[in-house]
């Protein structure tokens, strides 16, 4: 069966804004989403490991990782809405069929996320009421929560790899359907890109978590001892090293072992070669900065530079991923060729609200900074 016969016609409504505008917000949103998402993706697992096997200082670090987790999860979910919204606008022809083919795992994300989120609250409540070492049952919940987030990541990797793996649709559909209606039980596990993509995101998440540990130690842990900060830098270096090695291994597997010829040709020539190279080598920069801090000691400026470098790494990954996604889809459809029916006034209103919203958030954070400096013991 020709898989392109499974792609529906274009929407008569067209895009409400030029493709470039939609994809800009998709990439920006995904970059912002990755920051908190990475922290729960590997941060919770790391916190559980440190709690289980760590000494006094590393358990303190475990606690510091978990305490802001409820807020990070809320922000991560929130930031995830934007890329998903613009994905549905620009990639609707492949997004809906892919998620319908795996509807049950896709919908189960909501249940898993709810349980995991409450799991985090239960664990954090234990940190407040029971001190540094929460009760065993709370620790068990912490482990289950970490596993749920890994599973959610696996389902996301499935959905987004299946979105571009249109070639696999016919077999999955014919195998798991009733009279042409999918059962919603398919997963994209036969796709060779799935596993390295999932693992690569895990490795990249480790590097973000390492950077968070550094930033937390220098900016937010002013009441902790110098010994704690040294421990944090050591753990951050270990985690970052593991992340960078993992990223190199899984990235090589992904690029050299699974990329189709046309993707490799596109990403390895001209200006794209520079982008691919920067994306591949990018995680090395924060790692070097963490290494430097481990050897020479940390400062707020160094930690801020490390954070900035990591955001750059994530942005490079999001941009490269976006380009690869379009190349993967190119043989099936051209997402840039849809008609555009501009919605000027809602677009302008959105942009105005967006800027105003940023202003309000800045004002709120400014108020907090003032309050904290007035009342540092709070």
């Amino acid at each position, binding site marked *: 069966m020709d898989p392109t016969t499974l792609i529906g016609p274009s929407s008569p409504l067209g895009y409400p804004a030029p493709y470039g505008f939609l994809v800009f917000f998709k990439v920006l949103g995904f970059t912002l989403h990755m920051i908190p998402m990475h922290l729960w993706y590997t941060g919770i697992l790391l916190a559980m490991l440190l709690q289980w096997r760590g000494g006094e200082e590393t358990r303190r670090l475990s606690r510091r990782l978990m305490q802001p987790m409820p807020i990070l999860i809320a922000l991560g979910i929130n930031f995830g809405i934007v890329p998903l919204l613009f994905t549905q606008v620009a990639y*609707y022809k492949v997004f809906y069929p892919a998620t319908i083919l795996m509807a049950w795992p896709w919908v189960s994300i909501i249940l898993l996320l*709810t349980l995991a989120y409450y799991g985090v609250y239960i664990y954090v409540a234990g940190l407040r009421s029971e001190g540094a070492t929460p009760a065993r049952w709370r620790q068990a919940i912490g482990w289950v929560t970490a596993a749920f987030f890994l599973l959610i990541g696996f389902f996301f990797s499935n959905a987004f790899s299946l979105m571009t793996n249109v070639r696999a649709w016919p077999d999955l559909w014919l195998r798991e359907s009733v009279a042409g209606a999918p059962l919603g039980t398919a997963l994209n596990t036969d796709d060779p890109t799935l596993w390295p993509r999932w693992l690569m995101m895990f490795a990249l998440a480790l590097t973000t978590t390492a950077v968070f540990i550094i930033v937390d130690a220098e900016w937010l842990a002013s009441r902790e001892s110098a010994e704690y900060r040294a421990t944090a830098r050591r753990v951050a270096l270990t985690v970052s090293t593991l992340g960078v090695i993992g990223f190199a291994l899984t990235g090589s597997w992904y690029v050299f072992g699974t990329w189709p010829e046309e993707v490799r040709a596109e990403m390895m020539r001209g200006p794209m070669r520079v982008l691919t190279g920067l994306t591949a080598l990018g995680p090395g920069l924060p790692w070097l900065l963490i290494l430097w801090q481990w050897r020479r000691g940390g400062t707020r400026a160094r930690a801020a530079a490390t954070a900035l470098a990591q955001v750059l790494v994530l942005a490079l990954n999001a941009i490269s991923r976006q380009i690869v996604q379009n190349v993967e889809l190119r043989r099936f459809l051209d997402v840039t060729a849809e008609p555009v029916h501009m919605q000027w006034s809602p677009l302008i209103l959105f942009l105005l609200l967006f800027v105003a919203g940023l202003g*309000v958030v800045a004002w709120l954070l400014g108020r907090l900074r003032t*309050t904290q400096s007035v009342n540092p013991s709070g």
Partner: protein
Amino acid sequence: MHYPWWYVPFLTSPMLIAIIAVLHVLVAHYAVGGGLFLAVETQYAYRQNHREYLAYLKEHAWFFILITVVYGAITGVGIWWTIGVASPLATQTLIHIFVFGWAMEYVFFVLEIVSAFIFYYFWGRLDPKTHVRVGWMYAGSAWMSLVIITGITAFMLHSGRWPDERTFWAGFLNPQFVPQVLARTGGAFLLASLYVYLHAAFKAKDPALRDLIAARSARPALLGSLLIVLGGIGWFLTLPESAKAALVAASTLNILVVLLFAVTIAVFFMLYLGPYRNPGWLSPGFALLFFTFGLVAITTGEYIREAVRKPYIIYNVVLGNQIYAEKVPELRRIGYLEGGTWTKAWVSHHYPQVLNDGRIDPPRLLMLPEEDQVKLGEVLFLHHCNDCHAGRRGFSAVGQLLRGWTPDMVRTVVKHPEKAHFFMPPWAGTPEEAELLTKYLLRIAHPRPGGMRFGEER
């Protein structure tokens, strides 16, 4: 028609939307009204320097975050998740029309999250003026979220001028918009008070404090009741004719409307006699009963609101079975199997012999062996009918509905479902395809129940 149809045995996939939507709406209104409650009452408590009340409000804010920021936010995303897989064409259409509406709502959503966390986590660390201001920021953002999302959901019930003008504002400012904003704002006030009563009944140990909470929350609840009545009247007056007719014609809806009125009147009386006139009545049992009535009322109201939309998902734009209303004549001409992306692929793969010059030739469908015709009838049933009906067993199963029907009766309804029941979508296929569907339906129909006598046997 452009996307695969997700088959969920017994339940049907759209019922999953209904389940998640109901679970969400019970908290979503509290997320709006509760924010206003916290802003107003914190301001009052600061002004009165009422330390016990402030302590209670902090405790309530924690309860509020646990319920709304976690459960409310995720189930809200869950609705979006589920409509994408259970109602993809309608979702695609809504997103293409209202993407900037959702984007605007997202901005307010960010403000909600940030201000909610600051409001709670910096309690006692912000000066009262700033603290109250943050509370109002949350309340304002949450209400704006309600306004924006209501514009979109109201559009589904009445698309207004959009089919002619096809602009964002023609869709957003639809006839149902203002009535539904009023009713939902009222629902938010009322439901928030019920949540407050429930929480206070268990958590506020001091009777004087409990009485204060009961009395103060009665006013927004009564105002909410008034807004619900006003919004409800406006809602009814601006309903499309088909929705008004469905409200009267469907016996299930009749019962639900009576239930809604009965429970709502009970809530009003309980509110007036209880917290408003006799705050001391606020015991855990009373609060729990009150809360349950509130949930029943809002669940029933939401169910009615959804049900009267039939046969559309988006009035006059997208039918319940994922067909653009304007495409029905074309599908009747070329055939449903030919017009649907995935049905065409399925038929081409399994029955290439029915193709003529790359297109499905309807007369050839009836030349297939009987079993294959029934199989194709099942394909038609799942894609054309399964959005509302399960097969042999399950939710509104046709196998049960057609008990004892003759082939001619089934054939007539298949060809003209919208004439048999105005709340059903029209048949969107060729006469040959209607025959295939008829054969399948007769195969799964249960026999007429035995033992029924009408005098002829004597």
